[in-house]
Every structure is written in structure tokens, then in C-alpha cells.
């Protein structure tokens, strides 16, 4: 009876509980869903807090987001502690290293700006690797010295444990610092240094941590010999470099896979994530650094995958990655909060305060020492201001806490003290340093960067790259740019052919341009172009900037192609609204459809087709320019018909007015105008006419020395118009 009605209670339940006395209509069973439910609640709470955080404008400027996350964690911890609830065992070594850590690492690696990273890679490697080592050993050894002092009651903490603690606590997590930097847009070099450090630091610290743990687990670890130390040293390199190699291999494999996924674009994100995760796991199998493997995989993969996958997959990957890493971080911070308000503490004034002191001191020492040396090799050394900022941005975060939390209590009897000390350092750095670093950056007036995404900039940068490479070739030296050029050549020749679909290497200028055009096209389409009538001066676009740019473009086109400006009657302000408006509507609708279609298919705007924006912009009066941008084929058929028609009136006009001298020209111009005005109804609607003239202009341009012709056409309206017409006529 009851066993039939309650099948859910099957596994592990005692016999008695299966037997109820009555049939229950309504039952509550919380234990069944406890773990997932609580996890979900924590995540939701953190998300809600984030929403609130960003809604209240002043908060993000005051403090970094990590503060908020920790606060939420503490809150949850307080609730759990207060209700004396038994926390579900969500965090243990396996879960942390296998599930919580990878998403965070992946996100960091994927969103890394590759170019500045590789330009500064020498400094970054030098600083991250040696900085981590220096910090770890420095803090460890200093603490060991402190532990020797009898008065503090720490003599049972031996050297190895101190070194381990040092390596744990030197894991830097400058997310907060980076957020501040991004908001203050500090110069790229500084940003890259800290970003690069955060990327590599985790990997290195975990490697060190594992080595020390391995030492602790050695059978007779009291008698560690120099052989073992050397082995540890060698292991460090093997683990680090092996990880990177692994990652690169996996990156290439996954990029290769995405080459063939045109027809099933929905599995593209899956490929990306699974391959990265696999790289992590297989590296961990061999005791190689999974973190470095995953980072290298993400960096390698990104370039090729972005070219191959559809627009939707690209967006999915981005957002899913962010989501996953956000979930992991939240969970870790909740755990931190729970631990804070728990009974896991052992407070020892000396240990805690000296830890904090040594963290700050050693960071400053490592920064100034290492940068002093690396500045000698840099063309643009880091100033003292920069170095001060870097040393101040050594915030600790979730990784230190996790490593402390996961220590085996059996091997480390003073584990609780470690946890306490770690927590104190984290709270101090995140809250106090995190909040004050913003004002500090502003106060020191650190050099800023101008991150404007403009076509001009892209073109100039490209030009400069080639220029520098060329100059280096000429003076016969190898330098950065040559290496980069060589890599690019190799990349284009072999790698891209293998890894990218359809063999269409797109240059960065083109992709930037495309990106900007897409953005603008969507903006334009969204702001309801159909409703804007062409009756008044320009488009009634709701937003100011597109209108400005649009009128700018109008102006430029209007003036660069003076040929169309004949008489006031053709001025765009007094142009009859009918034809142009209808045409505008038609073209707009056509363009919107094709835009929607292409976006739906999941492909970015195909480059072969005309770019919609240009067409949209010039709908008003500058059909000429739009015609130029649009597919020549379609209009050519129209044009050829009109050309014929246009030639006749022009030829007739020519016979009437001889272009002997300037006055004659102006004279004929007015005649032309008049006759043109008269002929207006007879002519085809303006756009095509304009097109026809444009075509002739184009051919002129191609045949003659272009520069002279275009320049003249720009400068003097009247004269040029006529000269041009005459030229055109002479040709025919």
C-alpha cells in the first residue's frame, strides 16, 4: 500500500519509514533536494545582490565587486551558522579542482587580449614566474623565522609547512584591481602586466603547492635531500611547460574540429568547452598543470574558433563561459563566508599579523627588484608610479582560500590557523586595498590609454606594423616586429589553411570595419528608419550620434562627388519627397530583410554582399554613393540603359556651348542647368541619372591619374562640374 504510493523513498531508507499509517496527501521531503536547492539559492542570492549592486550607481565606483561577493558569502554563512544548519558538503578537493576551478581559468584565458599579451610576454613571464617564486619563498622563510621565536607558540610549524603556506598565500587574484583599471582606463602596459600575472600566477602557485604537498607526503620527509630539492625544481619546469604544450595541442585539435561544423552549429560551443575541459583533465592525469594547459588551450583556440563559428555560437560561448565562471566564483565566496562565521578558527596574533605584514612587504620587494632588472631590457620602462600601483594591486582572493581550505588536517595540524590567517589577508586586501586602489590610481594620475575603436586607428596601426617591419628589413635587424611578421606569415600559410573554414583569412581592418558596420546597421534598423521622412533636412534619427555621422557622411559624399550638384533644384533640401522616400523605403526594407536573413542563418554579414549601412545612409539624395557601394552588377544594367538616354541630351547641350574659356563654361553651365531643369521630367528619376554620371566618373577616374581629377572635383564646385561634364562628353 504505502510502498506503492511512495516509490520515491526507495534507496537507503529504513524499513519503518516506508510504512505510513495513512495515505498522505501532502508531503514534504527536503532532504531529497537539499544540496542542489541550497546551491541554487546561494547562487540566486549572489546574483540578486549583484543586480542591486549595479543598480545603485555609486557603489561600483566605491568598491570592487569582490567585496560584494564576500559580503554575500558572509551573510549566507551567518544564516547557516545561526540556524545551526548542517552545510551540505559542496566543497572538497575533488569538487574544487575538478568542477569549480576550471570555468574560472577558462574564462580568464579566453578573454585575454592576445596582442598586448604577446608584445609584453617577456616582462610578463619574468614578473609572474619569478614574482610568484620570490613571494612564496620569501613569505615562507620569513614566517619560518618568526615561528622559531618561542614566545609566539609556533615552533611546531616547520619549514615545509611555512613554505607551503607561503606558496598558498602568494596566489594573487587581482580581479578587483583589474576592474578598477578598466574603469580608469589605465595604460595598456600596466593592465597587461597585472592581467598576465593573474593568468599565470594561479598555475604557478598550484604547481608549487602540489610540489610541497608531495614533499609533505614523502615517506621520510624529515630527511629531504638535495636530490629531492633538485627533483622538485625540475618538476616545476616539467609541469609548467608541459601544461602549456598540452594546451596548445588541444587548442589546435579543437580549432580543427570547428572547421567542419557548418551544418551543425549548435554543437560548436560544446566542442569548445569540452575540448578545453579535456585538456585540463588530461593534464591533471599526468600531474601536469591543468590550469596552464587550459589557459594555453583557450588562447590558441580562440583565434581560429572565432573565425569558424557562427555568430550565435560565438555569443553563446562568451556568455556561457561568463556564466559558468560567475557561478564558480560565487560558490567559492559563499564557502569563504561560511568558513568565516564558523568554528574553524584559531587565532594567533603573531602569525596572522606577520603574515599580513610579510605579504605586503614581499610584494613590494619583488615588484621593485624584478622591475628594476626588467626595465633595463624594455624600451619603455615602467615608472615608479606604475610599480607602486602594481605592488598595491596584489589582492588575494578565492584561490588562496581554497588552497588553505583543502589542506589535509592530518598533515597540517595547524590548519585552522592557516585558514584564519588566509582569511584575514583576503579581507584586508580585498576590502581595504580594493577600495582605496581606485582613488590611488586617480591620485597618482597614471598614464591612460585611449581605447577608441575607430577605423582610422586600425588602419594606422596596420600601416605602422608594416612600416616598422620594413624598416627593420632595410637596416638588417631582427626585432619584435619581424618575429611577429614571420609568425603571421607562417600562420597565414599553413595554420589558417588547415584550421579555418573556406580559406578566407580576414584582415583585422576588415573585421573591425565589419563589426562597426554591423553595429551601426542594427542601430539604424532598430531606430525605425521607415518612419523618418526625407522631407526635412536629414533623417529623423532618434539618437544624435548616428545622425551626426550620417550627415557627416552625407557631407563628405556630397562634396566629394560634386558632379551631382547641379542647381538648387537638385539640392537635397528641396528635393521632391516622393520618389526618394519611396525608394528609401524600398531599399530599407530590402536591406532589412537581407540583414535579418543573414543574421538568422547565423552567419555574419557576408562580405560579398553590399554593406547595408552605406545604402541606408545615402538613401536621401546621395543615391550616387549608395550606388557605388552596392553591387555594380545589378545597377549596371539600369545604368547602361540610362547612359544611352543621358548621352543624347548632353551631346545636344555640348553642341550648343563651346567650352572655349571659363566664362563660356560658366555660361554653358547655366545653360546646362536650365536645360537640365527643363529636361528634368524627361530624365529618369534622379538616382539613376546620378548613377550614370557616377559611372562615367568612375571610369574616368580609373583611366586618368585619379588624384588630380578627384581633388579638383572636391575643390571648386561650379568649374569642376562643367569641366567634368565636358570631359565626359568628350569621351563619348
Amino acid at each position, binding site marked *: 500500500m504505502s510502498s506503492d504510493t511512495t516509490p520515491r523513498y526507495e534507496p537507503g531508507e529504513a524499513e519503518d519509514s516506508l510504512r505510513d499509517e495513512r495515505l498522505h496527501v501532502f508531503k514534504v521531503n527536503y532532504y531529497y533536494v537539499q544540496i542542489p536547492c541550497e546551491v541554487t539559492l546561494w547562487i540566486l542570492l549572489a546574483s540578486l545582490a549583484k543586480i542591486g549592486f549595479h543598480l545603485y550607481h555609486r557603489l561600483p565606483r566605491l568598491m570592487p565587486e569582490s567585496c560584494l561577493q564576500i559580503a554575500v558569502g558572509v551573510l549566507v554563512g551567518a544564516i547557516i551558522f545561526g540556524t545551526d544548519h548542517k552545510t551540505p558538503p559542496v566543497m572538497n578537493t575533488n569538487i574544487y579542482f575538478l568542477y569549480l576551478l576550471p570555468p574560472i581559468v577558462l574564462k580568464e584565458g579566453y578573454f585575454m587580449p592576445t596582442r598586448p599579451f604577446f608584445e609584453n610576454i617577456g616582462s610578463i613571464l619574468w614578473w609572474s614566474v619569478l614574482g610568484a617564486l620570490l613571494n612564496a619563498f620569501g613569505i615562507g622563510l620569513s614566517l619560518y623565522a618568526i615561528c622559531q621565536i618561542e614566545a609566539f607558540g609556533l615552533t611546531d610549524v616547520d619549514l615545509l609547512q611555512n613554505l607551503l603556506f607561503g606558496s598558498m598565500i602568494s596566489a594573487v587574484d587581482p580581479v578587483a584591481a583589474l576592474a578598477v583599471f578598466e574603469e580608469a582606463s589605465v595604460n595598456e602596459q600596466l593592465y597587461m602586466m597585472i592581467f598576465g600575472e593573474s593568468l599565470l600566477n594561479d598555475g604557478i602557485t598550484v604547481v608549487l603547492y602540489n610540489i610541497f604537498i608531495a614533499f609533505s607526503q614523502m615517506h621520510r620527509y624529515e630527511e629531504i635531500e638535495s636530490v629531492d630539492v633538485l627533483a622538485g625544481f625540475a618538476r616545476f619546469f616539467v609541469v609548467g611547460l608541459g601544461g602549456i604544450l598540452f594546451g596548445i595541442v588541444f587548442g589546435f585539435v579543437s580549432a580543427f574540429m570547428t572547421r567542419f561544423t557548418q551544418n551543425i552549429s549548435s554543437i560548436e560551443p560544446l566542442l569548445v568547452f569540452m575540448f578545453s575541459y579535456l585538456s585540463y583533465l588530461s593534464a591533471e592525469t599526468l600531474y601536469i598543470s591543468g590550469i596552464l594547459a587550459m589557459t594555453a588551450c583557450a588562447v590558441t583556440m580562440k583565434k581560429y574558433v572565432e573565425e569558424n563559428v557562427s555568430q550565435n555560437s560565438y555569443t553563446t560561448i562568451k556568455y556561457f563561459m561568463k556564466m559558468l565562471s560567475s557561478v564558480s566564483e560565487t560558490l567559492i565566496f559563499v564557502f569563504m563566508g561560511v568558513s568565516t562565521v564558523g568554528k574553524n578558527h584559531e587565532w594567533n596574533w603573531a602569525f596572522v599579523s606577520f603574515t599580513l605584514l610579510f605579504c605586503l612587504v614581499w610584494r613590494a620587494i619583488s615588484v621593485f627588484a624584478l622591475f628594476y632588472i626588467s626595465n633595463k631590457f624594455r624600451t619603455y620602462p615602467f615608472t615608479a608610479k606604475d610599480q607602486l600601483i602594481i605592488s598595491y594591486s596584489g589582492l588575494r582572493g578565492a584561490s588562496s582560500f581554497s588552497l588553505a581550505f583543502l589542506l589535509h588536517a592530518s598533515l597540517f595540524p595547524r590548519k585552522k590557523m592557516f585558514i584564519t590567517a588566509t582569511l584575514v589577508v583576503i579581507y584586508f586586501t580585498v576590502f581595504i586595498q580594493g577600495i582605496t586602489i581606485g582613488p590611488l590610481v586617480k591620485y597618482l594620475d597614471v598614464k591612460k590609454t585611449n581605447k577608441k575603436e575607430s577605423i582610422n586607428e586600425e588602419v594606422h596601426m596596420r600601416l605602422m606594423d608594416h612600416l*616598422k617591419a620594413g624598416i627593420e628589413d632595410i637596416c638588417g635587424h*631582427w626585432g*619584435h616586429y619581424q618575429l611577429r611578421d614571420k609568425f603571421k606569415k607562417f600562420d597565414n600559410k599553413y595554420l589558417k589553411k588547415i584550421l579555418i573554414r573556406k580559406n578566407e583569412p580576414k584582415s583585422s*581592418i576588415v573585421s573591425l570595419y565589419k563589426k562597426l558596420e554591423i553595429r551601426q546597421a542594427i542601430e539604424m534598423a532598430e531606430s525605425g528608419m521607415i518612419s523618418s521622412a526625407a522631407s526635412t533636412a536629414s533623417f529623423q534619427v532618434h539618437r544624435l550620434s548616428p545622425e551626426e555621422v550620417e550627415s557627416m557622411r552625407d557631407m*563628405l559624399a556630397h*562634396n566629394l562627388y560634386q558632379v551631382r550638384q547641379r542647381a538648387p533644384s537638385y539640392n537635397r533640401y528641396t528635393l521632391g519627397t516622393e520618389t526618394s522616400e519611396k525608394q528609401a523605403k524600398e531599399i530599407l526594407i530590402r536591406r532589412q530583410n537581407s540583414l535579418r536573413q543573414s543574421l538568422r542563418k547565423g552567419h555574419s554579414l557576408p562580405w560579398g554582399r553590399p554593406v547595408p549601412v552605406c545604402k541606408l545612409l545615402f538613401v536621401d539624395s546621395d543615391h550616387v554613393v549608395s550606388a557605388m557601394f552596392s553591387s555594380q552588377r545589378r545597377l549596371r544594367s539600369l545604368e547602361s540603359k540610362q547612359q544611352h538616354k543621358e548621352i543624347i541630351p548632353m551631346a545636344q547641350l555640348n553642341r550648343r556651348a563651346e567650352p572655349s574659356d571659363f566664362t563660356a563654361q560658366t555660361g554653358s553651365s547655366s545653360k546646362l542647368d536650365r536645360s537640365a531643369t527643363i529636361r528634368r521630367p524627361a530624365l529618369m528619376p534622379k538616382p539613376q541619372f546620378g548613377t550614370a554620371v557616377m559611372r562615367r566618373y568612375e571610369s574616368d577616374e580609373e583611366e586618368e591619374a585619379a588624384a588630380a581629377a*578627384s*581633388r579638383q572635383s572636391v575643390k571648386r564646385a561650379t568649374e569642376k562640374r562643367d569641366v567634368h561634364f565636358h570631359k565626359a562628353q568628350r569621351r563619348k
Partner: protein
Amino acid sequence: FLSLFLLLVTSEQIEHLHRRFKQLSGDQPTIRKEHFDNIPDLEFNPIRSKIVHAFFDKRNLRQESDGLADEINFEDFLTIMSYFRPIEMNMDEEQLDHFRKEKLKFLFHMYDSDHDGKITLQEYRNVVEELLSGNPHLEKESARSIADGAMMEAASICVGQMEPDQVYEGITFEDFLKIWQGIDIETKMHVRFLNMETIAQCH
């Protein structure tokens, strides 16, 4: 400017450059355009012609006249190289500004091929086409559109809101300076050899 440059460069580096000059010129006292064809790696550079052209551009050589020189001697060679040296930390504001202007002028001359002091749409198009010429899959259309877009951007930066009858003829040097205002060219336009030991030598 050249003398300032010479003060800051070691004799070793000048030696090296002189050797390279001799190598290129075939032991002649002057170099002509054809001599640059001997550099194999330069072949693949899409803006090769502009770079070579820049060496012979009289405006870059600080000669009063305009146009192209037929041949340049070692001093001219060094003059061109001086545009690429990195800035020193101990320069004052005025020197830095002057320096920056010089570098930007060099770039400007690369764009402005007809020497009229303005970068017109056609010239800009030319540059973009050359830049993208290494990529066989791009049509000329694309290069044109890009140049047009860039030109319009430049117009909006330089002139702001234009009257309906205003003409935007081309980017003048002042406009060019405006566009480059946010970007620090000093850190980008330099070649490392000029303050480090040589790493390798390509023949």
C-alpha cells in the same frame, strides 16, 4: 634634429648602419631606388613601395624643395632612420612634442603621395588598398568602403558638425594630429635596434 640623433646613438650603431648602407648600395656612396629591391624580405611587405618612396621623399630628407630625390647618401639614410628612434626618458615637454610631430609628419607624408599637404579620399583609398593587397580574397570594393568610412570618421573628428555647404577636402596635417591625439605614437613608432645591441643580421 639629425645632430641630436647622432649624439644619442652610439658609434657602434652608426658603424653598423654604415656597413648596411654599403651593403645595400654595393659600395657606392649613394643609394638609388633599385638598390632596395635587393632586400628579399621587403618583397612581401604590402606597403613596400611607400616605404621605399619615403626614403627618397625630399620632405623627409628636410630639403627645401619638393618631390623625389634620385639618390640618397649615408647622411640622408641616417636622417630617415632618425624618425624611428625611441624617445628618451630625459626629454622635456617641448622636445617630446617636437619629436612626436616629426614622427607624425613622416607618417603623413606616407599617406600624402602627391605632396599637396592633404590626404584626399583617393590617396587614403590607395593606402588601404595597398595595406590589404596581401590578402587576395578581398575585393577592391571593400578597401574602398573602408577608406570612405575612415575618411568620414576623420571628418567627424576634425570638423565636427559641418554646414550643408561646407566641403571637406582632405585630411590636413592639423587634422591628422587631431586624429592621433589619443594614440601615443612615441611608444609605437620605433625600431628597437636603435638602443639595443643587434640581435641578428639578415643578409
